[in-house]
């Protein structure tokens, strides 16, 4: 996988792809999965990140998602945003087709 998770990152969230359709999803503080990055649980150190990932893992067995992993986010004034280009594209959709992906459904992301 390109643009691997930055091992030194402290501000983190968990993402995966949904089994049924491959949709990008984010692990929420409530322990469910959301299609929207804005719903993602964000933690602020590596230990909390690992704990969040462990909490997400049963969803693999439950056939909800595939391949959960941690990724780096940065805090903004009114929320957070993924750091890498890769995660920004996953969050929105192809930059060359603004009519496709999440950006087509939710203009706010």
């Amino acid at each position: 996988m390109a643009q691997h998770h930055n091992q030194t990152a402290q501000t983190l969230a968990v993402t995966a792809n949904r089994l049924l359709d491959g949709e990008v999803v984010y692990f929420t503080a409530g322990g469910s999965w959301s299609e929207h990055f804005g719903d993602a649980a964000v933690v602020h150190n590596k230990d909390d990140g690992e704990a969040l990932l462990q909490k997400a893992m049963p969803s693999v067995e439950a056939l909800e998602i595939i391949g959960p992993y941690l990724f780096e986010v940065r805090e903004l004034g009114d929320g957070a945003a993924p750091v890498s280009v890769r995660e920004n594209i996953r969050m929105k959709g192809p930059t060359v087709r603004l009519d496709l992906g999440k950006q087509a459904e939710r203009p706010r992301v």
Partner: protein
Amino acid sequence: MYRYDEFDHKIVTERVEQFRGQVARRLSGELSEDEFKPLRLMNGLYLQLHAYMLRVAVPYGTLSSKQLRQLAHIARKYDKGYAHFTTRQNVQYNWPRLADVPDILKDLADVEMHALQTSGNCIRNITTDPYAGVSADELEDPRPWAEILRQWSSLHPEFSFLPRKFKIAINGAKEDRAAILFHDIGIGMARGDNDEVGFRVYVGGGQGRTPMIAECIREFLPKADLLAYMEAILRVYNRFGRRDNLYKSRIKILVHQIGAEDMAKQVEVEFAAIQKQSDSLKVPQKEVDRILAYFAPKNYESLGEFAPETEEARLADEAFARWLDVNTADHKVPGYRIVNISTKPIGGIPGDMSADDMDAVADLADKFSFSELRVTHKQNLTFTDVRRKDLHALWKALDERGLASANISLITDQIACPGLDYCNLANTRSIPIAQEISQRFEDADLQRRIGRLHINISGCINACGHHHVGHIGILGVDKKGVEYYQVGLGGSSDNNGSIGKIVGPAFARNEIVDAIGTIVDTYLDQRVDGEEFLDTYRRIGLQPFKETLYDTAQH
């Protein structure tokens, strides 16, 4: 074109039902992702950034209009209304739902198509010259042999778990339009003693992180021995190819390590052993004849080389004249032309086509080109058999749909992989770079003045965008999560194959298009009459480009 026999039908139909069962078992939890992944990959199903991706095989790039309509139907019903033509002459869908894939495969099987061996460490889709069978410079049509190789390699039990994926290309013309020097095995049709036509065999070419030009290990191979010789190469590779390191497991590494001479010897020993054991791999002439019949010349009309209506239109319509010059090629039959349909309008996404356009192209193939077309490894489409007198009508119909971009082999006819906009392996985006370069060089007269210039763009070292063989090759590299682009010059996949040389430090996202502009300006400044970009580069080398690039780009 080839039609399935009862065995093909049975194999494909059974595979659809097998996969339907496998998907059901995955969705019920009976199969884990680790167990399911190799099964889905065997059926061309990947998981990419936003969704699953299904890669459909287009054997040696040949499609019927009926098949193209079915591909459009699939795009509309199960995907998001478009499909992507790839550098392996295949088709990809970027948004299928897992549960729908068995139905997609069923719809493909209905038109004699499938997704077998479009992934995994097996022999992939055999590719060939998009002009095969009709070009004026052809020794013989390679498609019957591509079909024989397809049948031999399909579900071959011995070669289903090779050290790594394996790509074979075959070319029958004097001009290599199939990039045979950059395949695991490249086959060129050749003339031997007594004028007998057979094959010249190259092995160990490839791109990726270790680009290599294939070496010839057999100057002449009789046709009947093709499968036995292929089997011998694959056996040597299967036995000695590395399996301990993903990046050193392609056959090119083996050939590089033991040398082409030793490789040839090993293959000859295995070849002799196969021949001694039995004749079972000798291709029976009866079977060759049966397959040849599918590729018999079309029912061409006796036409003169001159079509007055086309010449009148050429004089009256500058845009048509330009398209005629740039997008059509010589046909072996008088009165016919080969027509290329560019998928690359200015600012477009190379290789993408909407379902509506696919339907329209299928209708035009019915009307103008014996209901057949080809997918090219440059991500364009080709009508191989258009009457010269129909060219203006075809151009008008294409132009109405925005499909008449006159840019084949010009600077805006770029190869670009899907890159980080779609691909899970990519480091950077490729498509936006292609789009911006296309817009920079929008002016048709400027494109003609620049002449033949291939820009190939890959979003990572795997080189799906063939950057190593671009006259200008662009490779996206990730520097701490930021996109940079490395530029190589002087690559080529034609008869004089060469691997591009890196010109210097990579350029930032906001610098790369200007850098390409500087390279083109340098070329235009340095070239002498009659030279194309590659000629100029080969004459003057990297240095003049380095000087202008790094003087102006502040590196």
